[in-house]
């Protein structure tokens, strides 16, 4: 599982690749730290290459959302495949995030 953070068009993009299970979540949490300094920039969570997410991963996404909202920034998700989308739907997270 790898997490990369890029900046594109004035937005911060976090690209996830692989399986974000509970074990991987430990590391991913650290990898997402740079997003905290997102003043003036919206965040995009790119799940195009994300194969799997469990509740730990969802928790991380939620943290990002809460943090960005506190700073007045928006968070978008892009590139969910059907499986990932199902998980978001089951948990209702689909309503929390805007899709891009």
């Amino acid at each position, binding site marked *: 599982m790898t997490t990369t953070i890029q900046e594109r068009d004035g937005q911060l993009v976090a690209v996830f690749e692989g*399986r974000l*299970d*509970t*074990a991987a979540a*430990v590391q991913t949490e650290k990898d997402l730290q740079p997003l905290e300094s997102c003043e003036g920039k919206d965040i995009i969570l790119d799940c195009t290459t994300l194969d*799997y997410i*469990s*509740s*730990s991963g*969802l*928790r991380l996404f*939620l943290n990002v*959302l*809460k943090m960005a*909202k506190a700073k007045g920034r928006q968070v978008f998700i892009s590139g969910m495949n*059907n*499986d990932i989308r*199902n*998980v978001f739907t*089951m*948990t*209702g997270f689909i*309503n*929390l995030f805007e899709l891009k």
Partner: protein
Amino acid sequence: MKFLNKILNDSVATRTSLLVFVLITIIMLTGGFYQMKRVRDVVADETNRQAGRAMDGVLADIDSRISNVETAVATAAAFADRDTQDESLCYELLYRLISKNNDIAAATLLYRDSFFPNLGRYYAPTVTRDPQTGELAADEIGGPDNDFCYIETDSNWIYTNLLEEGYWCLPYVDSMSTKRAMVTYSVPLYDAKDSIYAVLCADVALDWVRDIVEDAKPYPYSRVIVLSRDSQYVCHPEPEWIQSVNVIDQATQMQDSDFLNLASRMLSWKRGTDTLQENVTYMTPGDKAHDESTIVYYAPVPRVQWAVSFTMPESKIMEQPNLLWRSMLILLVVMLVLISIVLNLVVRAQIWPLKQLALATQEIAQGHFDKPLPRIHTRDEIRNMRDSFEEMQTSLSHYIDELQASTAAKASIQSELKVASEIQMSMLPKLFPPYPERDDIDIFGALTPAKAVGGDLYDFFIRDEKLFFCIGDVSGKGVPASLVMAVTRSLFRTISLHESQPDRIVTQINNTLSNQNESNMFVTLFVGVLDLPTGRMRYCNAGHDSPLLVGDGVGFLPCDSNIPAGVMENWKYTLQEASIDPQTTIFLYTDGLTEAEDINHGQFGEQRILAVAEEVLQAQQQTPNHIIKMMTTAVSNFVGEAEQSDDLTMLAIQYTKHQLAIRYRNELIITNDVKEVPRLAEFVEEACETVHFDMATTMQLNLALEEAVVNVIDYGYPAGTKGEIHIEAQANEQRLKFTITDSGVPFDPTAKEEVDTTLSAEERPIGGLGIHLVRQIMDSINYERLNGHNVLTLRKKI
């Protein structure tokens, strides 16, 4: 009669008028009669008086006229000698006599035979007065034709001869000249030898008698009758009867004894009054023959030996009074009619307000309670009645309003009760079979409340492959019991969502009920949790009847009685366990079954329940439907006509699990470290492949398993402790199940509340997502605590 009835009873005015009319008529008629009698008496008296006076007058008149004649003749006789000797001087005498007396119609000297030898045998000079002209004419009427003068004949002369004094003869009709009724006064003339040589006669026509009497009669309608001493009529209204009818003969012929008596009396020269009652045609000719009451006044004229009588028909006497009477009656009738009419109108007018009142009251009686009563301006009894009516109307109106309100309230209570009953009934599971898709459980329940709403309850639901069920009986009946029943059921449902241990469920129910229990109502309760995969039942009894187990024989489930819920807070309820074999039916009931009464107050009792169960088991038909049906029939037959005394509730649960053959089995053991999580993926994939799940499902199962295991890793063992987690995969033809076992602290992930996925990010708690996902993905999750291990089973249908 009916008509009279109608008149009397239909109208006050008519009745009053009629009564007044009748009364006044009676009074006035009575008075009238009395008065009339007096009037009649007065009139009779007056008539008598008048008649008397008239009679006196007549008598006096007749008497005077006759005495005048008598005196004239006597005087002439006294001095007759001078003239009588000469046959022409006698005419002078006669002229003198007749001219001085208008009453004398003829004066005659009757010489005895051959007194004047040269004049023949018979010599009777006479001077007559013409009745019409009054001229006097002399004549000589002696001759054999006038034989009354002579001694030889049987005539008056004889009597004259025999008398020494003047003599009035009987009346006769003057056949010679004028055919008038006459009477003659004769005075004998004596010569020196004292023998009669001549008779001086003066004829008196009796016309004047009639005239006198006619003039003197007291009333125009009186009739005069004069009788002479030979019972002949001297005077009579019927001129032909004069001197031709003998009254005695007549009376005798008529066979009229009264008349006869009267005539006799008259001819006895009596004076008096008589009343005759017969046909008086002979007295008053010209009238029609009729019986009439006639009054006769009679008196004698002794000088000539006549009897004079006045007759007066009583009808004539009483003519005036009768007219008066008649006119009085007419007046009375007219007056009474007028009075009646006026009275009728007046009473009607007085009664009119009553009539209006009656009409208004009628309208009020139709239901228009607001109709105002007519105004009455007087302050009399009618006004009083109207005011009383008004009071009555007002109070009636209020009463009706109150009644309507209370009836409406009652009706609304009734309808609310009905709705409450419907609500209560709808709270019970009533769709049977409730889980047709399941093959391991069959349930049937029946509840018949004694009143509209009852205090019995049963409930069941399946959560995480466990059947939670309960049955209970609230103390009392009716609305209060039904309210407690509703509360208890809600508590059962709510608490069981996160609590799987029956004793803890009961404890919480008990604490809540006891806490709020001001009315000291309590519930006997039996709560059971049947683990459907294993048939293991945990239960807790709170004062309720022990259920029956019908399977391997018939017997009661051993139950601690504890105490009913709601009695005492913080009571420690005991947890019990039993293993239910497949095909066994758990039969639960309330004391409405055991205590069902027949008309003799005998109870159904446990023995009968056992008997029915035995019978059912014998036939190997212990399905819930059948058992309850048999019980219902048995109770119904037992109770018969008696009224249902308590709510009757039964719940039957049959465990019908079949063990299916296991097709696949695998296990994995990991340590409680998240790093082990990736190992799950492979494990799950292999199991899923065996049962031919697609990739999406496999991924989901992977997720579910990860969440479940991570839960155990996070909470299962105390922090820092190392522990093992054992995961087993098992598949039969129906499902794939994963069983996660650990020996950590007792932790029931299914007891956590559902995550509210509708909350926003800010509101969303961090935890709880894992179990939520597991529930979403798996068909069922099931937790058991067995032998110090947490055993979580996840199942997915194939």
